[in-house]
């Protein structure tokens, strides 16, 4: 069993070797003529304004925290899923094991889902939704002309 992981290690080593070889080959081949203009940060052709390290809303952080908790829950489910349907355990308990296991997981996930429901009800899972603005141009074209065109091209569908 342990030698399998040795092979994983080999895989990682070979992958690193491939990446390193490509990078080194690239380094040898490519031209390197830096100048100040090239090395500026890209900002749509303008001179960059300030530093990019701006502060983000803490809401991203809350999502990450909730994610960590559910990830741990998920990892508890992995061993559960392997023992849940085992025939010998079911046979030992006259078929009660499966329902029992399902029940205990229901309680576990149910309690955690309460947390999700709390966040949901309180609106922490809601993200700012862009409100489409209706443009109010002073159109010289009468609106019924659009209507006519729309109808013309939608009728033969």
């Amino acid at each position, binding site marked *: 069993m342990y*030698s*399998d*992981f040795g*092979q*994983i290690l*080999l*895989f*990682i080593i*070979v*992958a690193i070797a*491939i*990446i390193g070889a*490509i*990078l080194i*080959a*690239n380094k040898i*081949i*490519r*031209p*390197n*003529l*830096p100048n*100040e203009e090239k090395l*500026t*940060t*890209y*900002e749509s052709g303008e001179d*960059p304004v300030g*530093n*990019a*390290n701006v502060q*983000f809303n803490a809401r*991203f952080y809350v*999502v*990450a925290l909730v*994610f960590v908790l*559910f*990830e741990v829950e*998920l990892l508890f*489910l992995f061993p559960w899923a*392997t023992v*849940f*349907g085992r025939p010998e355990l079911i046979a030992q308990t006259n078929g009660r094991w*499966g*329902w029992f296991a399902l029940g205990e*997981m*229901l309680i576990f*996930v149910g309690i955690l889902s309460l947390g*999700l429901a709390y966040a*949901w009800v309180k609106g922490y*899972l*809601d*993200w*700012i*939704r*862009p409100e489409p603005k209706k443009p109010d141009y002073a159109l010289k074209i009468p*609106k019924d002309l*659009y*209507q006519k065109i729309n109808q013309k091209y*939608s009728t033969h569908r």
Partner: protein
Amino acid sequence: MDTASWIIKALIIVGVFAVTLLIATYSTLAERKIAGFMQDRLGPDRAGPFGVFQPLADAVKMFFKEDFIPAQANKWLFIAGPCLSMLTALMTSAVIPFGDTIRYEEQTIAVQGVELNVGILYVFGIVSLGVYGLMIGGWASNNKFSLLGAVRAASQNISYEIALGLSIIAIIMSAGSLSLRDIVNQQHGFAWNIFYQPVGFIIFVTCAFAECNRTPFDLPECETELVGGYHTEYSSMKLGFYLFSEYINMFISSLVVSTLYLGGFNYPGMDWVYAKLTALAGDTTGHNLATLIGFLALFFKGLFGVFFFMWVRWTVPRFRFDQLMDLGWKALFPLAILNIFFTGAGEMLGYHGFTWIIVGIMTILAATNAVKAPPRKMYPADV
């Protein structure tokens, strides 16, 4: 260990990497050809017949491009980002069971990099590390577009990872094993998991799209809003690494989907083919030929998966960020939990396809919603 087993190991590693890299290289051509087909144009056709040398030309271009690291950037992390991305993409292929076994001089060799009895956890672990490449690269660039791309990548990946894991749980409940080879062997013939786990399949595929950052989930690199997203500042082979790792991820995730839901190297009528081949060509050769056919079957599924990725790219428009988070947290996540309970109840009652009930309910809900929805109005008419 003796020399022969070392050689076999080396051959397997080289073979797995060669196959993955080759497929990823030609996926770039396929992407452009399929895009061309969908948009009624030719796609690349100058380099060689039908443009078959286009990937080579692209690679040469990548190698010869000048590479610069912005003065504001964090140099080492700027280099580490794409390398990590590439490394995590390459590592997943190690545990995929590509085929049954090959018999060669009294030895039985599994067509697989490594057989782990926690194979699916390995895949899941590497997927959870995949976000670092984008985060580090985007942050190290010290560019506003890159930073926004990195934030988006991170929050998108973590939002879809849980639903992904929960849909894997439903598979393990019926398989009772975390080994990918066991899961494949249980789908012998045509007993594929997709027929028992339709909801899990849909959730898994959606999450795979999100984890690969493919359209409709390509917000981290969305060119209409963020120029190039997390790889705005990258050029030359480092950009190549980012793009290449996306194609590798695409192929690998198609293979994982095939392994978990579409029977892996199993195909209908495989027992009949096996019996015929062993009768025709003898035990050893027949077995090896049958393995080859299974390998091709898996390959076909994987390539179809890659095609599906590209098909969706030109069919479904990109999500908005709030839609993306809503889909992950409010739709897929509860649905995945529901799926687990239906699977469990189904296993207990002896109905393996119990989750079809969810599909039925969802279809009815969607249909009633569609009927109830107000008719669409066209733009200037409702001003």
